[in-house]
């Protein structure tokens, strides 16, 4: 397998990490209605930072954000907290392997994780006596893993700038 050429990245700005998580929380709080196939952007951003900056974004923040989402979604308390915690753990443990691949292949590798997350969520709710929300829920992991590509590009963009600016070469 051909290795994708790795670019040397700039150090990450912690403010950028936190503001991206805040934007993810805002997206999670958007009142989009009861649609089962909506991808979970906050979970994607959390997993992304756990893969790229495992020493900065850990399971604690994932748990807290999950609790916030639970309360706002009027869901079972602790349901999203559990999912986010497990996903961040899996992200940290897969991190060394995942970063060898290019971004599209990373998305393919993340697909089983997202399927597992949604399956776990559905199983918890079914075990506690909820009804199935419909077939739309099958599309959610696919959309999650498709969104991995734009989110990776956007969140890595500040680290891909040049370290010393050159007036003649703007990029």
């Amino acid at each position, binding site marked *: 397998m051909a290795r994708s050429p790795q670019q*040397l*990245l*700039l*150090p*990450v700005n912690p403010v950028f990490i936190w503001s991206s998580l*805040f934007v993810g*929380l*805002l*997206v999670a*709080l*958007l*009142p*989009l*209605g*009861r*649609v*089962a196939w*909506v991808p979970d952007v906050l979970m994607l951003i959390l997993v992304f930072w756990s893969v790229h900056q495992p*020493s900065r974004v*850990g*399971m*604690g923040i994932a*748990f807290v954000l*999950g*609790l*916030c989402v639970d*309360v*706002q*979604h*009027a*869901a*079972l*308390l*602790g*349901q999203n*907290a*559990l999912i986010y*915690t*497990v996903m961040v*753990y899996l992200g*940290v*443990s897969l991190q060394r392997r995942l970063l060898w691949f290019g971004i599209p292949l990373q998305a393919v590798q993340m697909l089983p994780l997202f399927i597992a997350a949604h399956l776990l969520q559905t199983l*918890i*709710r079914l075990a*506690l*006596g*909820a*009804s199935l*929300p*419909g077939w*739309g*829920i099958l599309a959610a992991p696919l959309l999650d893993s498709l969104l991995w590509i734009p989110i990776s590009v956007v969140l890595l963009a500040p*680290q891909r700038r040049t*370290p*010393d600016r050159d007036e003649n070469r703007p990029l």
Partner: protein
Amino acid sequence: MPLGTLDRSAPPFFKQGPSARSTLAVLTALSLLLMVADTRLGITPPIRAAVSTALYPVQWLALQPVRLGRLGSEYMATVRSAQSVEDIARKGILQQAQRANQVEELLLENRRLRDLLALRQRLQAPEQAAEVLYDAPDPYTRRVIIDRGQLQGVALGAPVLDETGVLGQVTRVHPLLAEVSLLIDRDFSIPVLNVRTGARSVAYGDPAGGGALELRFMPGNADVEEGDLLTTSGVDGVYPAGLPVAKVSHVERRSESAFARIHCLPLARTQGARHVLVLQPLGDQMPPRPPEDAAPVENKRRLLPPRVVPTP
């Protein structure tokens, strides 16, 4: 390239903090505990209230695009459509005016008759208008969030109506918001009265498909027809009597089953309702329950005076 411009740095020499697995185990156990506490123990409302209050500014920020969109679409509505809506509303009011006057008279008459018969007066519930902020995104339940909470005096269990009928009941109260379970939620049940026959029954929520209600445990030969109007019966001490709830849409009688399957469609708008009315639950106004005898039946029998043996 100067130092400090690379993202790659040496890993920490001495590992700091607990290992990933132990953190995972602790947090997983904590979230499982929260789930159990939420479903069985019922000790989580303070946690929910705290998180909800802390999250309120962020939520307000997230709601702004939606509010702006609504405002914009209302602003763009032309004068003509506003005039036509007003025309329709005026005609509706005219049609209702006569009936409303009759209702006043009937209410008066009813009160006098009840006075005559020494019956208890019908209960009146104080009400409060509220606006639906958003549908709960959780796809497993059918709930909406309204913009009135504990601070505005919304009580747990309060009935919620829209302009056409009963919409649901307040099932969680936060300080500034409240969650309303819709009629069609899976765990919802409401005592109803068939207006045509006067038969009482209980309607259960059925979220499958677009959402409906089901009358369960009605015998196969029960007198229920399609199109029957179901209203609240008022026997539960929560809903005032006589509010429209649903219309029977489909009756299925099978010879192999002792019960008929009766499907009803809710009259209230379970999707897209914006302005709702929150009533106070009637429980506070109900007469107190008769005191239950603490002594079981056997003791009562023992307390009877001893039988006197007739002397010959």
